[in-house]
């Protein structure tokens, strides 16, 4: 099987998972959510094989352009869903996370995204490409989980549900924050120092990842020290995810800078 067949298969399975999860949401059948998870896991395997094949064929890490990084980000979000899907109320995140995944995969598959594996420009030829991008996107996937849980928190009616969703969002931030700190900021600094001779250049992408980091740091401090919970925490987590999203997409298209390749 070729990489694009596997990727399309994953796309179809994710869409199936979305249907299963949505059906369980609207028809209130828990078993359909289980079916959604199974489809997501099979899709995840197919997607993993696609990423491996692409890496083998191109000889470099599969996140050097928008198509590749979208593909990897959606893979990471499915991974986060699989990890969080078994926690209390985890299946509730399914329909929304799969909606995000399907949207990202659809965007990656759109004709707007050049899919060819292009040879790497000199600045990207480094093992830090692996470390920096993969760990950052993994961290952002957990921020997506926190975002969905926080959103559901704001919409939820029952106190018990609210408490569980709040705890779920916090757990996702607790996993995502160290990963984002390590991958996005620290590995980014180390690589920038090797490639450009400066660890920090106040490039818009750097500044926006700092902004994302500050928002989640605010989330943790208000929560752990001031004891904020619930609505206020949920709003900060949502703002944090939007900042991460802007760092990922917006900076490339709206602001010019050193990170023009991805």
């Amino acid at each position, binding site marked *: 099987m070729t990489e694009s067949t596997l990727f399309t298969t994953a796309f179809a399975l994710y869409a199936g998972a979305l249907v299963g999860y949505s059906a369980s949401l609207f028809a209130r059948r828990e078993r359909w959510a289980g079916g959604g998870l199974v489809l997501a896991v099979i899709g995840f395997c197919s997607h993993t094989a696609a990423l491996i094949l692409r890496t083998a064929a191109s000889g470099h890490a599969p996140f050097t352009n928008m198509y590749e990084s979208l593909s990897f980000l959606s893979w990471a979000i499915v991974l986060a869903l699989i990890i969080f899907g078994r926690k209390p109320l985890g299946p509730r995140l399914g329909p929304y996370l799969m909606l995000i995944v399907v949207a990202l995969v659809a965007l990656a598959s759109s004709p707007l995204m050049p899919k060819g594996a292009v*040879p790497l420009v*000199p*600045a990207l*030829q480094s093992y830090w490409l692996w470390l920096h991008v993969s760990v950052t996107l993994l961290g952002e996937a957990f921020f997506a989980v926190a975002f969905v849980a926080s959103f559901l928190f704001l919409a939820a009616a029952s106190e018990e549900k609210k408490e569980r969703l709040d705890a779920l969002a916090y757990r996702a931030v607790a996993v995502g924050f160290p990963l984002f700190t390590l991958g996005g900021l620290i590995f980014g600094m180390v690589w920038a120092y*090797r*490639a450009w*001779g400066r660890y920090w250049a106040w490039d*818009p992408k750097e*500044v926006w990842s700092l902004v994302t980091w500050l928002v989640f740091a605010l989330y943790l401090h208000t929560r752990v020290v001031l004891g904020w919970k619930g609505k206020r925490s949920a709003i900060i987590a949502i703002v944090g995810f939007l900042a991460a999203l802007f760092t990922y997409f917006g*900076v490339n298209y709206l602001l010019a800078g050193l990170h023009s390749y991805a």
Partner: protein
Amino acid sequence: MRSFWRFFSSVKLAIVLFVLITLASILGTLIPQGQSAAEYAVRYGGLAGPLASLQMTRLYQSGWYLALLLLFALNTIICTLSRFGPKWRKAFGPVTGTDAQGLPAITVKSRFRLPLPLAAAKERIAGLLRSRRYRLTESPAAGGIVLLARKQRLGRFGSDVVHLGLIVILCGGLTSGIGGRRSDLALLEGQTAEVPRAAFSLRLDKFETEHYPQGGVKDWKSTITVIENGAPVASRVVEVNHPLTYRGFSFYQTSYGWDWATPRLGLEIRKRADASFSKAVSLKVGERVPVDDADVSHVSVREFVPDFVIGEGNKVRSRSQEPRNPAALVEAWKGEERVFAAWIFAKYPDFGQGHERGRSALSFILKSYEADQFSVLEAARDPGAEFIWLGCLLVIAGSFLAFYWPAREIQVVLEEAQGQVEVTAGGQAAKGREAFQAEFDRLFEKARRPS
């Protein structure tokens, strides 16, 4: 002094600073940084002056942004210090104020009776706790014993380690800002240049650009020799992502270019009347080369540009330093009289002849253009970098301690009652409550089972 301390130990101040630094940083991405006054005037008109005087155009280096960071640093230090003592006592100090009545307030708890003497009951529970790697502190209480069991105590200090790391990073940034030096060295092959503020020089032995088979640059490589006291001491290839570090300096492959001021040009001269006539000449800009012809005695090139474009005021200039559209202004002479002048283009050999300013029986083709290539290396000395890496290590170690090594604490009160021992246990975990609950339940399930 006290009010200073109280002001800076407030977490509310930290929240305000988080928000202010975030907003200021965003502002700096919306206003382009470090451009010329003219560019700001075009972009912002009358607002350009006020923006510059508020240092919005060099925001991240501005006094007020640095002041925010300084306040943030002070706040972090004082917050961390003021909470450190109580935390230390909680992690390592003796048992304080515990009784069996207070424990039920804790969510994770257990209460049962053991038909054993006090000492045996204590040994049994202490042994179980030790087998789960808990460290025990024992103290007497009214009618019994209190056991305080703690593990993963360093987890409590994760946030302190992160804060220390952040302070080290800010110090590193300050050191880089004050003591950092960088300069560009442009070197032609074979050329030697002194490194500013250093006691050695660099010689470029070779510069290569590697291409992929399908086009596109694969790598730029400069072979560099370090020369100290007139003698070569080290030789290495510097590539993008592979800098050379020597005596506190790092050298990065940052750019390259061609010395287009003195190109070696090759022209082919043809006669319009005689298709079989062809003559190749090579010359430099400004050089006059004799041509054996009735109408033209000499030919010369007045100007050369690598990337021809007509700019403002109909002036010819080069759009870039890349040879994308090489063009030469050719002149033909008869004695001291210029009979012909035209721009000719290497990539469009038929085009230039239409622009001729005089008639000539000859036509000219720009066949070759060569210039020495130079490599640009950035010489950087960054005394703050080591602080940054140390700070990063602390931040990561601290984050992982805080999030993945959560402190756990179990208090057990043992009281003698009617020949049995009443055991009351309560526990707390900084994070990972479910896992802790499971461990706690297993422990006390074992403890109450008759052996």
